[in-house]
């Protein structure tokens, strides 16, 4: 019997009832169009109707270049864009799964207004105009009553938050944050203070476009690398930097030695030459031992021990002071083990590695040229003392001559293309503000009211999102700058595309502060807004939900961490489904509503009168591309002045179709535009060069002195800034025993580590396990509802241990949250869930078997529960879980939500009162637990 879809639907009453769920809006449209194709249609006709788009991913922050095809307005295939050298046509499992994001039944579809209590997840559908007016009215009230600084805008885990920042900076709040604050700021600290950069990666991106001796530009596919050391970094599965997957293995095939330092035998470790199963939270110890060994044993005349390349002294300042401060520790003894700091024996005791292995690693890193030392997000970025790790790591790469050397490391943040500056941060920094402080009227700028840098976190260069709950509860106390002594409450929290309630600090702490009420029973935080495509925990606490277009439905720009400047376009490949809108539309809509509500700062000329369509916004952002300087070997553009800033399309710069401004030292070609990108396979690629720090101008080094600073000018500036306001020591810095921010080599221990920090040694016996997390495809806050990823397993962290379960799916739709008709069954073993990876011998010792449910309890009395997976692939005494993948409380997580009570959350157990003392990062991976059989 041959039935068409429609006949089938019509024939089945239950199916018809559920079909109506999809028979709304654009889905119905898409379906009726697609039904024009039948089995009798010739393939070539279908292919002729297929449309191809070059766009970019944003399912994760790797943002790979994509080639997407659609048929009748529905996505058909997802491939990589081979023209984008960052991923060169390759994509991972997550990249291929985007169809299930955009067409997910769980996604947010309509604007909604809360009808239940915050956290309950009860909403009613609203129109865009009603929702915008609701938000605008409250924002205007807050602005008048408390000042615009009482509003926080969190732009979330996407790099295209500029329209939202523009809106809220112009509204008048300096408090615009984004996910970077809770991503890995300690990992970025060292590069930031030493070279003004952020992200050191191995020189593994191939191809790169290189100027040839004959003047031509060619793609170079060769690998110069001889050694790559990944510390707490698992690029094969964390997939943050696409090219590190194919690049690592190609370099290895070419003879490079690959070393992985990680408590778990990750997929990257599985393909490495050498795995060092280090104790969690001791990366700083290992790096310090390597530095001590290299300094002590450096012998310039001996080719075997010619570790240090003194060239770095030409482009750096302060090394003698850094070295002296470092050496000053060598004779001190550690209270935990009684051994001299940074000695091989001391390091062996603390890291659990053999002294001979540590010596070998130090020697090989020092003597192998080129080599790359790379530290990761979960491994170092999520430890309290990650700032120490990244500082020593940067120094190690620089003094050994590997910085920007072919086959060495590249600070990709220093060499990537600029993509903006239209977020109105210039406006907010200059906008005059007056406040009454201790009875006196004080004048400053709005920027001086920024909550972190003028408050408890003067050096948190991305803000201290993990410590926000304290400020929600206690209000912002301005301690430094013109407004020192001023305080204000947090009254509104606008979150877009992030999930801070779950992932920044603990959910318990967040829900406590955003549901706190005043004496009259009103929420103290008067307005919570969530703008997103996915329905996450943060959305459950929102007063208003605005559905944002997914990354296949909106425009944006990607410039993610390549070795050379690359800029590629994210463009809508399908129309937004349901009532979702793109970020420029939402910016304009909210701006108009604020204007209508009487906000004098929001004018048509800055928003809806200026950006008529989203292209206008991104074309303006592209005016600054690439914004890199013409430096390095080989010189990118030998026909243009060396050291000048480059602006414009690759073809105009190549042809010399430019205007040269000698005063500004700037070369202006034809501006890059959205249309130019569309016409050029979606991507602009400017040439690669190396040794870009050696230019007389200081090249790519972005510190104030133009040199690498081993005496940290930025920290000196912050110390002086604090001193001007009386020099009060920020509370978290005080906990480390420092009264000022370090200005050269510094050391402090991580927290909740009984093996390295004497304050916690007492927990060693009662809480014998260290709890860490490991990032995988499925472990992002908004990943687990994707069916395809739910069905595959990963690294003994996301495994098919689900129980047989019958469930009633709940979707957020026109009626608010609604249980969909029908009962569904997930058979045991059909769905992967977050598990607790435990060393097999540890498990046997506790009488546990894979699949047993246990409770993990920490000394703070916090608990989580989950099933154990006994594994040989992890160090004894360590438990590992996927971050953000367990104990999910939002029905928007689909099948994953159904298993919320048997899946673990490491975030639940982190210490909400501790954040990295300089950058304000939550210490996600510093905790000890005991295991209790449930």
């Amino acid at each position, binding site marked *: 019997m041959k039935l068409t879809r429609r006949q089938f639907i019509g024939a089945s009453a239950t199916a018809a009832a559920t079909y109506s769920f999809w028979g709304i809006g654009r889905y119905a449209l898409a379906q009726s169009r697609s039904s024009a194709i039948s089995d009798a249609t010739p393939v070539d006709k279908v292919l002729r109707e297929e449309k191809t788009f070059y766009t970019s991913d944003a399912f994760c922050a790797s943002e790979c270049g994509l080639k997407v095809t659609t048929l009748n307005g529905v996505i058909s295939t*997802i491939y990589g864009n081979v023209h984008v050298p960052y991923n060169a046509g390759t994509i991972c499992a997550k990249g291929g799964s985007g169809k299930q994001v955009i067409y997910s039944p769980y996604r947010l579809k309509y604007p909604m207004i809360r009808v239940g209590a915050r956290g309950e997840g009860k909403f009613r559908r609203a129109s865009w105009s009603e929702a915008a007016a609701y938000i605008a009215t409250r924002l205007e009230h807050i602005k008048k009553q408390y000042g615009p600084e009482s509003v926080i805008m969190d732009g979330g885990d996407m790099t295209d938050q500029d329209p939202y920042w523009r809106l809220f900076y112009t509204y008048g709040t300096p408090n615009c944050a984004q996910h970077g604050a809770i991503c890995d700021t300690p990992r970025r600290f060292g590069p930031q203070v030493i070279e003004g950069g952020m992200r050191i990666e191995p020189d593994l991106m191939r191809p790169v476009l290189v100027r040839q001796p004959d003047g031509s530009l060619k793609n170079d596919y060769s690998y110069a690398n001889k050694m790559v050391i990944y510390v707490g970094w698992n690029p094969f599965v964390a997939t943050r930097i696409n090219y590190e997957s194919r690049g690592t293995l190609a370099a290895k095939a070419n003879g490079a030695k690959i070393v992985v330092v990680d408590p778990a035998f990750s997929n990257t470790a599985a393909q490495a030459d050498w795995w060092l199963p280090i104790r969690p939270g001791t990366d700083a110890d290992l790096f310090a031992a390597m530095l001590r060994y290299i300094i002590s044993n450096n012998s310039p005349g001996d080719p075997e021990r010619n570790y240090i390349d003194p060239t770095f002294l030409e482009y750096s300042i302060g090394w003698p002071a850094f070295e002296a401060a470092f050496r000053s520790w060598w004779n001190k003894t550690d209270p935990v083990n009684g051994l001299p700091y940074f000695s091989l024996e001391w390091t062996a005791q603390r890291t659990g590695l053999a002294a001979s292995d540590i010596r070998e690693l130090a020697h090989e890193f020092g003597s192998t040229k080129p080599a790359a030392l790379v530290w990761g997000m979960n491994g170092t970025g999520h430890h309290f003392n990650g700032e120490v790790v990244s500082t020593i790591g940067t120094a190690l790469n620089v003094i050994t001559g590997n910085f920007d050397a072919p086959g060495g490391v590249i600070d990709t943040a220093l060499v990537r293309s600029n993509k903006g500056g239209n977020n109105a941060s210039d406006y907010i920094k200059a906008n005059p503000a007056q406040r009454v402080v201790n009875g006196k009227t004080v004048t400053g700028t709005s920027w001086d009211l920024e909550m972190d840098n003028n408050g408890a976190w003067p050096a948190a260069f991305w803000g201290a999102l993990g410590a926000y709950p304290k400020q929600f509860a206690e209000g912002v106390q301005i301690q430094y700058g013109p407004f020192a002594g001023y305080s204000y409450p947090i009254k509104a929290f606008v979150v877009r595309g992030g999930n801070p309630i779950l992932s920044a600090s603990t959910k318990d702490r967040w829900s406590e502060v955003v549901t706190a009420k005043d004496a009259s029973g009103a929420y103290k935080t008067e307005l919570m807004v969530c703008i997103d495509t996915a329905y996450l925990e943060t959305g459950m606490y929102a007063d208003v939900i605005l559905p944002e277009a997914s990354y296949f439905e909106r425009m944006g720009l990607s410039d993610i961490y390549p070795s050379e400047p690359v800029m590629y376009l994210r463009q809508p490949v399908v129309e937004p489904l349901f009532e979702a809108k793109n970020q420029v539309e939402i910016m304009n809509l909210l701006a108009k509503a604020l204007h209508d509500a009487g906000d004098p700062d929001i004018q048509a000329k800055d928003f809806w009168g200026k950006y008529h369509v989203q292209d206008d916004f991104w074309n303006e952002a592209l005016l600054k591309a690439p914004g890199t300087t013409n430096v390095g070997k080989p010189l990118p553009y030998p026909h243009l002045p060396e050291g000048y800033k480059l602006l414009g399309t690759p073809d105009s710069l190549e042809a010399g179709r430019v205007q040269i401004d000698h005063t500004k030292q700037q070369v202006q070609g034809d501006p890059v535009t959205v249309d130019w990108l569309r016409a050029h396979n979606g991507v602009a690629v400017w040439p690669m060069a190396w040794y870009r720090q050696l230019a007389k101008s200081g090249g790519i080094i972005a510190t104030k002195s133009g040199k690498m600073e081993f005496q940290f000018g930025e920290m000196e500036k912050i110390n002086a800034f604090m001193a001007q306001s009386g020099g009060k020591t920020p509370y978290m810095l005080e906990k480390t025993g420092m009264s000022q921010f370090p200005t050269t080599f510094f050391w402090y221990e991580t927290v909740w580590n009984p093996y390295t920090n004497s304050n916690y040694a007492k927990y060693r016996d009662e809480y014998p396990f260290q709890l860490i997390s490991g990032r995988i495809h499925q472990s992002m806050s908004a990943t687990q509802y994707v069916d395809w990823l739910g069905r595959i397993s990963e690294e003994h962290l996301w495994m098919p241990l689900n129980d047989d379960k019958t469930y009633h799916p709940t979707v957020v739709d026109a009626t608010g949250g609604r249980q969909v008709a029908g009962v569904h069954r997930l058979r045991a073993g059909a769905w992967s869930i977050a598990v607790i990876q435990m060393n097999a011998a540890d498990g046997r010792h506790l009488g546990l078997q894979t699949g047993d449910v246990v409770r993990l309890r920490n000394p703070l009395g916090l608990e989580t529960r989950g099933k154990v997976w006994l594994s040989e*692939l992890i160090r004894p005494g360590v438990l590992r879980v996927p971050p953000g993948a367990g104990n999910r409380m939002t029905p928007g997580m689909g099948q994953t939500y159904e298993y919320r009570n048997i899946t673990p959350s490491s975030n639940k157990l982190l210490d909400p009162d501790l954040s990295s003392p300089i950058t304000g990062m939550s210490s996600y991976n510093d905790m000890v637990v005991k295991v209790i059989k449930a």
Partner: protein
Amino acid sequence: MSAGIKLSPIPTLPPPVDPSQEDITIVMRRDLRRALAKPIEQRHWGMVIDLQRCTGCQGCTIACINENKLPPGVVYRPVLENVSGTFPNVSKQFLPRPCMQCEDPPCVPVCPVAATYKRPDGIVAIDYDVCIGCRYCITACPYSARTFDWGEFYGDAVCGAPTAYEEVPSLEYGKVWMREPGTSPIGNTRKCQFCLERLDHGELPACTETCFGRATYFGDLNDPEALVNRVRQDRQMMQLKSDLGTNPSVFYLL
């Protein structure tokens, strides 16, 4: 190459510094054109998977689902994992497992209606219109490369109906398959066919084009100049279960 099928253009990238080092997907697409210019019986499609380059990301598994519009329970190219040893002396191997396209395929003789057959170019194909869904072939395949299409949709797990992307037809074997209840390929056995429809257009199989570690090579095993053959030189190689005499067209580099 069937008459009238248009080859898709090969992307143009900047010229390589070293002509022997180039984007392998571009090289392999040129290889495909050479093969497609030959009569079908003179080419032998084969795959080489470099196990030292597999990252275990499972991107190929998903790319294949995307391309072939596979429903729940139907997977053409899983990545198997083998863990061995005890801490700290452990190892882990990843093994992507497409259909082996055997020279002597055990699935073919067991088919009672001759729906499964070996093509002259080496691909083991299934004629969905002939297949009666008896699943003998599933049992016969020593590689578990065949799965059955029971008619499920991803949308079933939530709203009891297909999601919009499941309405997009599969173009397997160069034919349009709307995959509607009661019609093929629902009720048929399904398996990897090296993305035959893409090959016809001079494009690589989905797994090969997207491979994250660039571990997968594809081409005409009869063409000594093809990358799929050059890459095998001087490398240790294996075929899965070679003792069975099936002689797979898929080779693994160790």
